[in-house]
């Protein structure tokens, strides 16, 4: 039986874990930016889906993956713009709007797909892989981790970059203040609304890229509802990470691996329902929460609209 667990297979498992993890990573990092700035972005699922659709359409007709990802980011940012308008500028309820945008995006993309593609189901070619010289030669791990589409490396580089932005730049301070004490940011002369708008748009762009990656690299095509809750996973990851990008990375790796683990178990002939394996990551996280439960340190202003000079 173990003969099935060949190097090639292990490589594929790790490779798959990465492809499954990257959308979560992008969504989680994106959500983290919004949450830092005090916006609970429940609409991220819709942003991913919009990104997936826009990204696929662009990549399919232009034949360029780059175009696909840019379009995906813009698609996500488009939905985010609505979120920013309603929730940041007007201060409407973030949970209602978030859910509304998600439902709307699900329906709209499904409709568009229905009339555009449901007879032909067009598919992209394999995404070009960028093999990192040297690293990619390492047996098993090399091809699994260091021979991916460039967006994967970009997503991973985003982790230290964001960490740096959060801790070393004015933008980072502004975001932190917008979530911790918006009035203080305002008093310091930085527009809270603009800061949050910026954050939400950034979230939408990242989530959209995540969706586009899922469609163009992960699946190679678009089907309705294909994000299947990845956005909500992103929200959970962002909250668990408590503002630390590196934890989002860890989280998405764990979930990616657990998906591959499901397959590994089955191929290894371990006879358990997939649902059981699916529960593992959540069980792990809950366990960690129970063991190391401390204040989850969410921004005090999270979810609250800011109105200058109101009592």
């Amino acid at each position, binding site marked *: 039986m173990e003969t099935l667990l060949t190097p090639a297979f292990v490589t594929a498992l790790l490779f798959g874990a990465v492809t499954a993890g990257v959308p979560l990573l992008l969504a989680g990092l994106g959500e983290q930016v919004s949450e830092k700035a005090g916006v609970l972005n429940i609409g991220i699922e819709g942003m991913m889906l919009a990104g997936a659709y826009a990204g696929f359409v662009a990549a399919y007709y232009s034949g360029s993956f780059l175009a696909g990802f840019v379009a995906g980011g813009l698609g996500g940012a488009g939905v985010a713009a609505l979120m920013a308008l309603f929730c940041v500028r007007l201060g409407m309820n973030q949970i209602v709007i978030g859910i509304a945008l998600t439902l709307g995006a699900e329906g709209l993309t499904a409709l568009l797909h229905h009339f555009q593609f449901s007879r032909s189901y067009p598919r992209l070619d394999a995404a070009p892989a960028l093999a990192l010289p040297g690293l990619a030669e390492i047996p098993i791990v090399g091809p699994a981790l260091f021979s991916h589409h460039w967006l994967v490396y970009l997503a991973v580089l985003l982790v230290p970059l964001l960490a740096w932005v959060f801790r070393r*730049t*004015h933008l980072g301070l*502004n975001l932190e203040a917008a979530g*911790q004490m918006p009035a*203080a*940011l*305002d008093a310091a*002369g930085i527009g809270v609304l603009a800061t949050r708008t910026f954050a939400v748009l950034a979230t939408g762009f990242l989530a959209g890229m995540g969706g586009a990656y899922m469609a163009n690299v992960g699946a190679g095509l678009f089907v309705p509802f294909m994000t299947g809750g990845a956005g909500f996973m992103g929200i959970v990851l962002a909250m668990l990470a408590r503002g630390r990008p590196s934890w989002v990375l860890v989280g998405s790796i764990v979930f990616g691996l657990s998906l591959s683990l499901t397959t590994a178990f089955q191929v290894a002939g371990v006879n358990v329902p997939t649902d059981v394996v699916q529960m593992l990551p959540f069980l792990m996280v809950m366990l960690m929460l129970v063991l190391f439960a401390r204040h989850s340190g969410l921004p005090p202003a999270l979810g609250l609209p800011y109105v200058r000079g109101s009592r």
Partner: protein
Amino acid sequence: MGKAPVLSLRGVTKRFPGVIANDNISLDFRAGEIHVLLGENGAGKSTLIGVLAGMQQPDAGEILSHGRAVRIGSPRESLGLGIGTVFQHVLLVPSLTVLENLMLGRGRASRLDRAGTLRRFHDLSQALAVSLDPEAKLGALSLGQQQQVEIMRALWRGEGVLILDEPTSMLTPQGVRELGEVMRRLRGQGVAVIFITHKLREAYEFGDRISVLRLGRLVGQLGPERLSAMNQEQATDEVIRLMFGSPSGHQGEAETLAGRGIRRRAGIIDRSGEAILRARDLSTVAETGECPLREVGFDLWPGEVLGIAGVDGNGQKHLAEVLAGQRMAAQGSIRLGGVEIGGTDVGARRRMGLRYITDERLGEGTVQPFSVATNLVMKEIGVAGLWRHGVSLWGRIHGHARERIREFDIRTPSERTPVGRLSGGNIQKVLLARELGSAARVVIFNKPTYGLDLQNTKLARDRIREGADAGLATVLISTELDELIELADRIGVMFQGRLAGIIDNREGVEQRIGLLMTGAAA
């Protein structure tokens, strides 16, 4: 007087639902002049500041900067006009360090310039004669220190106008003196200082010009020449006349309002009986940025007022909370009327007649969006009379509220008004009305007159005195020495969590307390 105004208000009006906070106000602020704004709670001082700082948009009127009409649409535009503001309520980010708070707003997306900021930080620390750890998390600092950071930030760009909204309310006498020095120095450098306070002594001491607001209107001004012509007494009388429109017939009132001729409580305390409240080596564990209690103990007899002096942040908060039952002591015992209550909760202690009037009126004292009526019964939800079998009798609850509002003269549109809409003084009256009921035996006051205007301060102090005269045992925590001297029978000093020597409130007590406060004789 040749100085041209750097900043002027022309017929500025600002309305809020139910109130006209600023009513057609015209004022000039001149370079090198300390301009004091006086007025009751709710007179509209902070609103006026909000307008200048770009936090509030006036409904009518215009603002002139160096004679040029300007629109201050946002705080940034205010800063752009060289206006630095220290708001009444600290506006800093607790989760950031001092340095980071100072860097806030100095850029958009660029890199942080720690080195440069640190240099300026040290310069200003010198100028302001303060010593702060730039890397300390702001949330870990005492309110006084946080305010120093605010002032530093307001002065960062060497602003032309510096606005200080009740900066002295949480400073020690020493701190107030230092702040005065700073203001004078800035005046010397040609800064126009706008200084809001409720303390007439400070107004007279530091002010070159005093403007008085009343019910949103500008009711009078004492220019430099008139002010310098008057002695403190005349000035205060004049100000009080303006503030309360009380004809100089009520000299007595004026005197007490001005805090002159303080009558010490003549209450002769009978200490032969058993103390009603006995605290023995109470200690607590501190979270970050708090000062714990260290073996605090005292006795308190009925009708006695025990004053607790000390610089803010020396354990007063923990003491109050431990006594009230909001915080469990790590060790020690508390006996109320001979019964050990160390293990009981707030409710039980309240039922036994222990009351606590917190200094955090908004933070924990009230639920701002809830009505005055609800806040008045917040500590006895479910009591018979207002509830039957757990069912709320809203009719009675509102009736009860109307009584209290009348009795304590709470200024509110109605008992259904959200308490957050009331001015500081009236919120405090709500707390007093809630705590000083019939069944009270021991009352703990924490900074009861903090932020209150003269009238409300007088009202609060009268309540405390009356209570004590009626046999209430009172613990009075305050950073204001004259308040303690006016009300307390004995005064103890908190220093670094310890309660240093409790002494009788006699002549010359000031010096000894002053020493104890700095830990000298501790």
